[in-house]
Every structure is written in C-alpha cells, then in structure tokens.
C-alpha cells in the first residue's frame, strides 16, 4: 500500500451520463504543493470532491495517506483541511466563531479550544479582525479565514479548490503567501486547483494539467515548459499556458465551462465583491 498523500487510480465519475472525471490517475507526494490545472469543466472540482469523500466512489480508487476514502471516510476526513471554491465562511458569525465551529466538529478538547482557535487566526493575520462579523470581511480576508478554519484541526493534507478565484491581484498574492507560509511552518501537503497558469508556475512544486476528465501532463512547471521548448526545437521560453494548449490540442476555446460551472464562479465573484 502506498503512503503518498493522495493516490487515485482509474478514477471515473459521471453526472447523469456525462463523465466529468474519466480514468483519472494522480499521485501527490507528502509535503509538496501540487497544482491541478485546467479550464472550467475539466473535472478538477469533481476530482477534488471525490478525494474529499463528498462524492461516493468505489473502494480501491482513492487513498489518502494509505487510507481508502470509500472504506474509512471518517479517518480520511480527519486528515483533511478543505477550502471549497465558494466563499464558505458564515457571514452571520464572527471570524473567531467560524473557526471555533470547526475546532468543535474536529473534536478539539475544550481546554485548548480557545488557544488553538487563536493560533489559527494568528497564523493568517486575522487576530485583529477576529471578533468582527465575517460579513464585513473583504474577499481576501474571507479566504484567509477559511484557511484558518481548515488549519485548526492540524490537517496533514490541505485541499483548496480555486482559492484565488475572483480575487484582485494583491489579494491573490496575499492568499498564496499565507498558504506557503503555513506550509513552511507545518510541513503539510497542499493540493490546489486553479485555472490561473501563472499562479501554478510560481507557487506549485508540481502540476498536473487536466483536460476532459484526465491528467494529460505531469511534472514541475519548469520540466513541462522545457519539455515543450525542446519539442518545438526553439529557444523561446514556453509558458504553462503554451504547454496546456499543446496538451489539450484544438477545440479548447469552445469546450468546457457548462452553465452551472460559470454560474457558481460568478456567484463566488459576486460575493467577493
């Protein structure tokens, strides 16, 4: 049995006959920041929802630190910190109350609850705003609050689905800096999805390019870019976006991003304001 942070073999998941994820293989090594890249509708979110035990998958397809998500979902969830695509902090609670809820549902003992919540908030620089309602936070602050919610249970694997969607460039950088700082301090594994190729290039140790439900290319951003340059036999520096176009081939423009996808992205963008 593998002890990789995440290993998926032949994962397939279909919604009403449409295969959102189709023969998806992935291994995320312990301690790395792994970026799952792809356009809207590539199947990134579905893959994440399978890994986080939200969608039912047959036994043997997904292991998180060696534990089968189908066989022992409760044990898998105890290892996970999950930040979904939507801004999922409760606007009617304060920052501290939002984090406390997650401390409670992860069984943090009462005697260390307040201190642990305080540390999670401090780790993302929200100590000063902790007792304000989350509804008054900016988009970047809410993302940081969600990070604190995920951190409070000391997860070994942090899963972030499009963490910077709809944020302005400064807030995007801020969120990434916090993710990296926390990873540095805790040594946890990070699995992140994004469709911003520049972010993946800058912040991920390894990336997987996903298209039509499957990982089509895998490696460090540098490897993938050099690989394409060699293939083309030119000296011009390729970007990850070039690599992606090469991998996905034609038809990229008119594919992907069904109505529900776009709507949920818009909703998130609206809430970010």
């Amino acid at each position, binding site marked *: 049995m593998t002890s990789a942070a995440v290993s998926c073999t032949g994962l397939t998941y279909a919604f009403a006959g449409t295969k959102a994820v189709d023969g998806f293989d992935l291994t995320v090594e312990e301690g790395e920041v792994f970026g799952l890249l792809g356009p809207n509708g590539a199947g990134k979110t579905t893959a994440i929802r399978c890994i*986080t*035990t*939200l969608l039912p998958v047959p036994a043997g397809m997904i292991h998180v630190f060696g534990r089968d998500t189908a066989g022992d979902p409760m044990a898998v969830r105890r290892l996970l910190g999950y930040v979904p695509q939507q801004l999922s902090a409760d606007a009617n*609670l304060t920052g501290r109350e939002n984090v406390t809820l997650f*401390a409670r549902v992860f*069984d943090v*003992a009462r005697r260390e609850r307040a201190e642990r919540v305080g540390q999670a908030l401090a780790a993302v620089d929200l100590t000063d705003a902790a007792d304000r309602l989350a509804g008054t936070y900016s988009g970047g602050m809410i993302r940081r609050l969600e990070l604190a919610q995920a951190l409070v249970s000391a997860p070994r694997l942090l899963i972030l689905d499009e963490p910077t969607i709809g944020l302005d460039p400064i807030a995007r950088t801020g969120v990434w800096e916090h993710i990296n700082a926390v990873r540095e301090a805790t040594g946890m594994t990070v699995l992140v999805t994004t469709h911003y190729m520049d972010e993946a290039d800058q912040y991920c140790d390894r990336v997987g390019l996903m298209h039509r439900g499957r990982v089509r290319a895998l490696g460090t951003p540098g490897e993938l870019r050099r690989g394409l340059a060699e293939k083309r036999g030119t000296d011009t520096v390729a970007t990850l976006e070039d690599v992606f176009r090469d991998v996905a081939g034609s038809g990229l423009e008119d594919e992907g991003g069904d109505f529900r996808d776009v709507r949920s992205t818009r909703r998130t963008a609206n809430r970010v304001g």
Partner: protein
Amino acid sequence: MSEAPAAPRTVSADIGLLLKPPQPRAGWRLLPARVVAMCAVELQKLRHDRTELYTRAVQPALWLLIFGQTFTRIKAIPTHGLPYIDYLAPGIIAQSAMFIAIFYGIQIIWERDAGILNKLLVTPTPRSALTTGKAFAAGVKSLIQAVVVIVIAALLGVSLTWNPLKLLGVGAIVILGSAFFSCLSMTIAGIVLSRDRLMGIGQAITMPLFFGSNALYPLSVMPGWLQAVSKVNPLSYEVDALRGLLLGTPAHLSLDFAVLAVAAALGITAASSLLGRLAR
C-alpha cells in the same frame, strides 16, 4: 501593504497547537458534541441579529390578540370551560415553533450554495450526526421563539403554569416537534434542491398542518376526515402535550412524547439519507 514586498511571508505567531491533530472523541460522545456545536452556532447567530426574533413575534401576537380575544367573546368553540384565548395559546406556541422549523431547509440550501454544507461534510461528522445537530439547532431556535410567545400570552392574561418541571417538559416538546418539522423541511430540501421550490412547498404545507390539527379547535368539532388528518399530524400531539403541561387540561403526555420522538427519529433518518444529494 506596508511590509517589504521582497521578504517572503512567514508565520511569526506561535502555532504549536496547529501541529498536533486533536484526539478523536469516542463513538458515543460524538453525536452530543456535534449537536452542541450546531446549537452553539444557532445561538451565536441569534445573538448577533435578533431581528428575526422580533418580526416573528408579530404573527403569534396577532393570533392571540385578535383571533383569541374575539373568539373568547363569541364562545363558539367548546373548550371545557377555559377562556378561548387560554385554549388557543399552546396552539399558537406550537404553530410559531413549527413555522420556524418548516423553513429551516432554506438555510440548508443556502449553506449548500455557500459551500458551508460541503465543508461540514468533509469533517469527521457522520451525516446522521450533522442532521441531528441541525434538527436540534432548529429546535433551539424554535424554543427561543416559544419563550417569546409564552411571554406574550402571559401579558395577555393567559393563566399558564410556572412550575419549572412542567416548563422543562414544554421545552422538550417544542424541541422534539421542531426537530421533526425541520427534518421534514430538510428532507424536502434534499428532494427539490432549490430555495424557491422549497419556499413554495413550505407555504403550501404550513396552513394544512396548522388547520389540520387541534391548535385552533378540539378534535370533537372536526368532521371525520379532518379528525383522521389530525390524528396523523404530529402538530396535534405537540399541541396536546403543551396544553396539558401549560394549562393542566387532560392530555396523553406519554403518547405525545412517544409520537414526537418517533417522528423526530424518522425525520432525522429521512433527511440524513437525502443529505448526500445536497452534496453533489
């Protein structure tokens, strides 16, 4: 941004505790812990915003003030010698608690759209524990509403019991009843998956549930078919128990408790089995 842009950000605060996963609770202690967590959230929300508490007090106040006082004067409904407003008060308490619970599913759908539900489902919380927690959170919300209505009734001169044991019983009944109705709402939410449809269905069923119960009039004055409806309507058992506890009228307390407990358990089972649909 005041800090120097070149220096990479580091975590300067002490995060020692965040390196250590919390000890999982033993099996039997998990459910009460989740119920407490969900109820705490509900109370925190009410503390931040009490608007709903006040606006929701208007309807029951009008029922008691207008309907109650008028029908007390015309003495049209047989109440075994009680003033009609006294007879009505427990019915209105049950009704206002039910109204809160029956729209609780809207909150679940909102939490689903906001990603909150998904995040809770990725915590070590079995779906049945999450549903139970939510059901009791709805119960707590309804209970606070019930307290408001009891105070209004007392101000209008309804002679209610102040026996603390009986009031505890009232609390238990209101929570059980609301747990059932909120689960009914969450079950419908799991089927229709949209706020608008749930709103419509909620509107459509609240009045039949209310009029098809003994909240406004006793079973004895109903036509046969309505008596049959009333006998399978959990609201009737809630009202019966509340009347017995608050006014001391003859009631079937153990039957009422049993029916409401079984209804709540069935509701929790149904809502839990449909929760997965909301996660998709």
